[in-house]
């Protein structure tokens, strides 16, 4: 198993290096450093000012390694910076990117963690309930409802939630954030409810299919034949056997909780990493954008390895080698 994990990690490192090259191609070859400079300080800036700006941000090196600048070029510098987590300063407002990421992770996590846990419990609970009543009108209406819910854009859940709960009913503030926990709860309630509503349709649909697939298997018939109750069959037999698809879906998500939620944070004014990314889009802040993509891919690779390890815990038959 150790050998397998090492091999997976090595491939993961390779993938991350590939991601870094992709980002290099996108942000240095497709968008030239000159374009970045012009977007940051304006189209009509004097050539001298642009040159100075590029020098300050380290964009003035030659792109590729070549004779005389084997180490001092954009490609090597890009890899060196990303791999040592020295992300430099934002293209838009010169703040240190790493500082902003460290500041944003907390608010992001305070939104995504409760949403993730509640969403998981709600999704699995509801779909077990629906699968239990399979082929009845409860099941059929749940399927119809989840297709309806999936056809609504998540934007409408945000607008609807803000209008209905925030403006008309005045239960929670429409948007905002506060560092102190007592006040923060009130601000977080609405985005969490909206996030749950937006995700519940597709998750019930997914987990229901997973459970239904298992319900018709032979071991369920055996369990029923030996006299196990329906409730015990659902929780002990079906749920445990469905763990592999559930874990595949869930464990990969866990590292991403740190990255926050782009839409929710931007719409509800939560100063997390999602808002940081949205600010980077509006400010043409390419340095921050590529940093976020890079961190995202690191988290994804980590999540994949975690998923594999979690398989061996959930299902003793799985051997990693």
């Amino acid at each position, binding site marked *: 198993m150790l050998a397998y994990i090492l091999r997976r990690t090595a*491939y993961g490192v*390779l*993938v*991350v290096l*590939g*991601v870094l090259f*992709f*980002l290099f191609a*996108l*942000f240095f070859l*497709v*968008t030239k450093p000159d374009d970045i400079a012009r977007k940051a300080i304006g189209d009509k800036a004097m050539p001298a000012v642009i040159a100075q700006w590029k020098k300050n941000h380290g964009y003035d090196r030659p792109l590729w390694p070549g004779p005389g600048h084997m180490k001092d070029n954009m490609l090597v510098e890009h890899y060196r910076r990303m791999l040592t987590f020295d992300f430099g300063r934002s293209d838009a407002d010169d703040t240190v990117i790493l500082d902003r990421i460290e500041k944003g992770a907390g608010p992001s996590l305070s939104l995504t963690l409760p949403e993730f846990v509640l969403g998981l419990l709600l999704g699995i609970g509801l779909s077990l309930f629906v699968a239990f009543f399979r082929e009845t009108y409860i099941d059929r209406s749940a399927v119809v409802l989840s*297709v*309806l819910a*999936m*056809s*609504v*854009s*998540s*934007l*409408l859940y945000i*607008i609807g939630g*803000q*209008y209905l709960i925030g*403006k008309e009913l005045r239960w929670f503030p429409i948007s905002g954030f506060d560092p102190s926990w007592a006040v923060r709860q009130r601000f977080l309630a609405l985005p969490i409810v909206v996030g749950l509503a937006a995700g519940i349709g597709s998750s019930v649909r997914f987990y229901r299919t997973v459970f*239904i*697939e298992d319900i*018709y298997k032979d071991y369920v018939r055996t369990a029923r034949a030996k006299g196990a109750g329906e409730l015990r069959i659902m929780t002990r037999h079906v749920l445990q056997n469905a763990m592999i698809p559930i874990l595949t879906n869930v464990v990969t998500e866990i590292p*991403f909780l740190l*990255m926050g939620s*782009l*839409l929710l944070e*931007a*719409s509800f004014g939560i100063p997390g990493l999602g808002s940081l*990314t*949205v600010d980077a*889009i*509006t400010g*043409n802040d*390419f340095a921050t*954008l*590529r940093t*976020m*993509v890079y961190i*995202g*891919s690191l988290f*994804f*690779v980590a999540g*994949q390895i975690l998923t594999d390890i979690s398989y061996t815990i959930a299902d003793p038959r799985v051997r990693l080698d």
Partner: protein
Amino acid sequence: MTEVLNSYLTSNLIVLSLLLGALGLWRAVAKNRLWSEALRSVYRRRPIAVWVCALYLAVGLSDSVAWVGGAQVGTDAVASHQAKTVLDRIFGDTKEKSYSAPFADAEFYAKSKLRHPGSHVLGTDILGRDVLFVTLKGVRIALLIGGLTSLISIPLALLMGVLAGFFGKYIDDGVFFVVSVLQSMPSILLLIALITALPKSTLSVCIALAVTSWVGFCRLARGETMKLRELDYVYAARALGVSEMRIIWRHILPNLTHLIVITFALTFSGLVLSEAVLAWLNIGVEGSWGQMIAQAKNELSRDPVVWWNLAAAATALFVLLLAINLIGDAIRDVLDPRTARERQ
């Protein structure tokens, strides 16, 4: 490049070639018993959804065929030389000064008399454009986003997946690495990165959506090809000396067509929804429903509330996605033997 793409002649040509392609496909399907039965069975399951999709398609097409001339009396010289689509001609000149409620006679806030009282079924927006007209214009954009993106991503995914699955070894390693790299980036971040780096246009958004959406189908096609490659009839074909390319064309691809159709139907709605999110972040396609929704958000804080913009765009989006989701499910049930077995 963009000029050629935006020209109405190109648009007409594309519509013509799409119609010819659809006609050819229709004839091919009609000849094939399996496919025509599958199609009939999808229609039997979801007749309303099929008709709704056809209606959307008709509106989208009517907004794609354009020609110059036939300007209305009273329009200026520039307007009379602009190409107008069928949809533009049906609606004609409906511009007002500002907001007006559905079927209203006067403006919503200023209360001054409208130029066309009572004719705006869904009211007008802040610029005075008829909301029904703007919403119907969004149909073409939505179909373009889903259709053009699929037209880029599905052939790409199929090519890569089949080559990797069939030839294996280095090709497989290479394709799998590219897929892993693209998949390891969170799709929304990858989308944003691509769109900000590429020049701002509809095609860029479609390319970005294609880059993020092809990997899923590529993995599916690769896995399926690996399975098919080991089947007896492929061995038999190889033993008879059939060339590799012919084996792929005659024996592998026909067995993947049902996956292509299922993938197309099921990813279409996801693409349109993704564009709505992009529009919310201000990097979407000009004139899409997502953009309408994003702009209508601020109007909810007015007093009295301007709701018809949001309602129109949201309903148009919802109905299209619902119809496509329902048809997608029906297609999967009909074509995929696995789900059919699970259902009983």
